[in-house]
């Protein structure tokens, strides 16, 4: 068993990054995730593993530093929160277009605009549908615990390199700021060999020069590039991850991710204790979305409630998976207000089981 610690989600990400052998972090402070950069700076990672940590002049600079470094085949990451992530949209689209691996953490806060620094899940669309321009997708991982904040750093990097695609950890202020027990992985070595088929580390005599670009002036080439990307995104369904709670005999289903899923777990326990056959499906990957399992459960249950800290975003993906088979509802509180298990239970009674 690895080392046990009580840590904030944000700190866990930072510590896990060092241990995962991440080569560089570039970021800019913003609440509620500044602890990532602060923790890293405190750890002197340049001494622990040689990891480079740099406070950039802005989120835009940070994401473009990530783009530059990622092109050299290194493991690179950044983190921010909602307004800062919006500023990274152009850069993220470039990284996806140039097919570079990297990790981006969004510790979501309430918006739109400056909004509030309280937790929210209102950046679901931005993360899963591509807030930047063009047909691209991110792999989106939604941690629901501090442990997963730590675990998804290495997992995310693995997926990023597997697909040569940016991976986003879509967390929120709740998971970022809370402390839980974390089992930390052992220190990994930083990688020393790079895939010379694409990295830009200097053109050696024994290979052609490598180019990192997302530009294709020839429409046919751009078309082919996009179709290849599309195939790649489709193939990601191999890596769908989700978790089910009490779904075996469920008559009604909650779908919730991240912090909401934690709250929903309690609601399910409570409902079960009252004899109601409620289940919970927690998507762990938001893209690829676990539509197959939802589609399957839609044959079993009488209705589904998508529970989110927003005005209704993931509910669309749930509906697309269900495709009309059973009614799908949304319950959520936007803008930094967090519902309680009781609120969810009330919503279940009103919306989901209302007709029954």
């Amino acid at each position, binding site marked *: 068993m690895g080392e046990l610690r009580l840590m904030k989600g944000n700190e866990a990400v930072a510590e896990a990054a060092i241990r995962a052998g991440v*080569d*560089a972090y*570039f970021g800019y402070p913003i609440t509620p995730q500044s602890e990532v950069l602060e923790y890293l700076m405190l750890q002197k990672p340049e001494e622990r593993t040689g990891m*480079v940590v*740099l406070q*950039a*002049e*802005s989120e*835009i*600079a*940070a994401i*473009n*530093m*990530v*783009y*530059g*470094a*990622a*092109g*050299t085949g*290194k493991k*690179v990451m950044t983190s921010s929160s909602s307004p800062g992530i919006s500023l990274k949209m*152009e*850069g993220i689209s*470039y990284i996806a277009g*140039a097919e570079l691996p990297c990790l981006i953490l969004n510790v979501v806060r309430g918006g739109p605009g400056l909004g509030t620094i309280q937790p929210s899940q209102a950046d679901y669309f931005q993360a899963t549908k591509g807030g930047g321009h063009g047909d691209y997708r991110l792999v989106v991982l939604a941690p629901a615990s501090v442990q997963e904040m730590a675990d998804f750093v290495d997992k995310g990097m693995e997926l990023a390199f597997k697909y040569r695609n940016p991976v986003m950890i879509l967390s929120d202020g709740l998971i970022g700021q809370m402390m839980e027990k974390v089992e930390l992985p052992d220190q990994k070595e930083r990688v020393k060999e790079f895939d010379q088929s694409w*990295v*830009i*580390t*200097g*053109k*050696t*005599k024994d290979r052609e*020069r*490598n*180019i*990192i*670009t*997302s*530009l294709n002036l020839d429409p046919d080439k751009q078309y082919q590039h996009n179709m290849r990307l599309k195939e790649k995104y489709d193939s990601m369904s191999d890596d769908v991850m989700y978790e089910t709670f009490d779904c075996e005999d469920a008559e009604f289903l909650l779908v919730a991710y991240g912090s909401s899923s934690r709250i929903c777990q309690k609601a399910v326990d409570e409902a079960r204790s009252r004899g109601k056959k409620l289940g919970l499906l927690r998507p762990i990957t938001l893209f690829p979305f676990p539509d197959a399992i939802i589609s399957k459960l839609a044959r079993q249950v009488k209705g589904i409630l998508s529970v989110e800290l927003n005005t209704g975003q993931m509910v669309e993906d749930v509906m697309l998976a269900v495709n009309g088979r059973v009614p799908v509802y949304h319950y959520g509180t936007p803008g930094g207000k967090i519902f309680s298990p009781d609120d969810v239970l009330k919503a279940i009674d009103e919306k989901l089981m209302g007709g029954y």
Partner: protein
Amino acid sequence: MDIKEIIKPENLVHQRTSLMTDATLSYCPGCGHGTVHHLVMEVVEEMEIQEQTIGIAPVGCSVLAYDFMDIDMSQAAHGRAPAVATGIKRLWPDKFVFTYQGDGDLAAIGTAETIHACNRGEDITIIFINNGIYGMTGGQMAPTTLEGMKSSTSPYGRDLQSMGHPLKITELVAQLPGTNFVTRQAVHKPGNVRKTKKAIRKAFEVQREKKGMSFIEIVSNCNSGWKMSPNESNVWMEEHMFPSYPLGDMKVDGKIVKDLMKDLV
């Protein structure tokens, strides 16, 4: 003596460096971009650092620089080349990393990245082509467009009152403690070409010694944007651009060597 007797391998004086690819340059006839490309590759060749050199192409006419230079390169988003270069250099401190940027890229949308990379003293080289216009997108006004100069977005000439002043960003970055070598050159005449090449060489030497940012502005023509023939544009450049953007070294070995204030005001 017959020409044929002269044209023999042993008599070779100058030819295109082999570090330029065979691709035909996408630039308009007579455009200074091409000249600078050759110079950068000549220096890389002479220093024998092809294997350690990584270039960053901007968004601008030189967006395809990676098609022409036979080295590893990354294209960068508009204005962000210095951040991209920072990302690379921080992880590969022993490589030679340079950006190649236009005036729109470097001095408009990329102002923050330029200032901060210089201020951090990143050990990179910025090659800055100032042609006073946005060539790539069809001749719009740039931050460096001169007073009264016409462009497609200042069709009646740049009006200082409403459109702001020509921005001398090189004079500004020369004053930042992070820059080690800052100079302004040109490539329209053989003498200038030779000086520019020396400057590029020096910049790469500074990088080798990790002494901070080396920043080379090259005042260049954009005959398409200026709507002149190449040679007309070079004459116009001497007459109009050089008074505002005087050539010469501004900072050498970390020391300012010129009365910048005079040039600025």
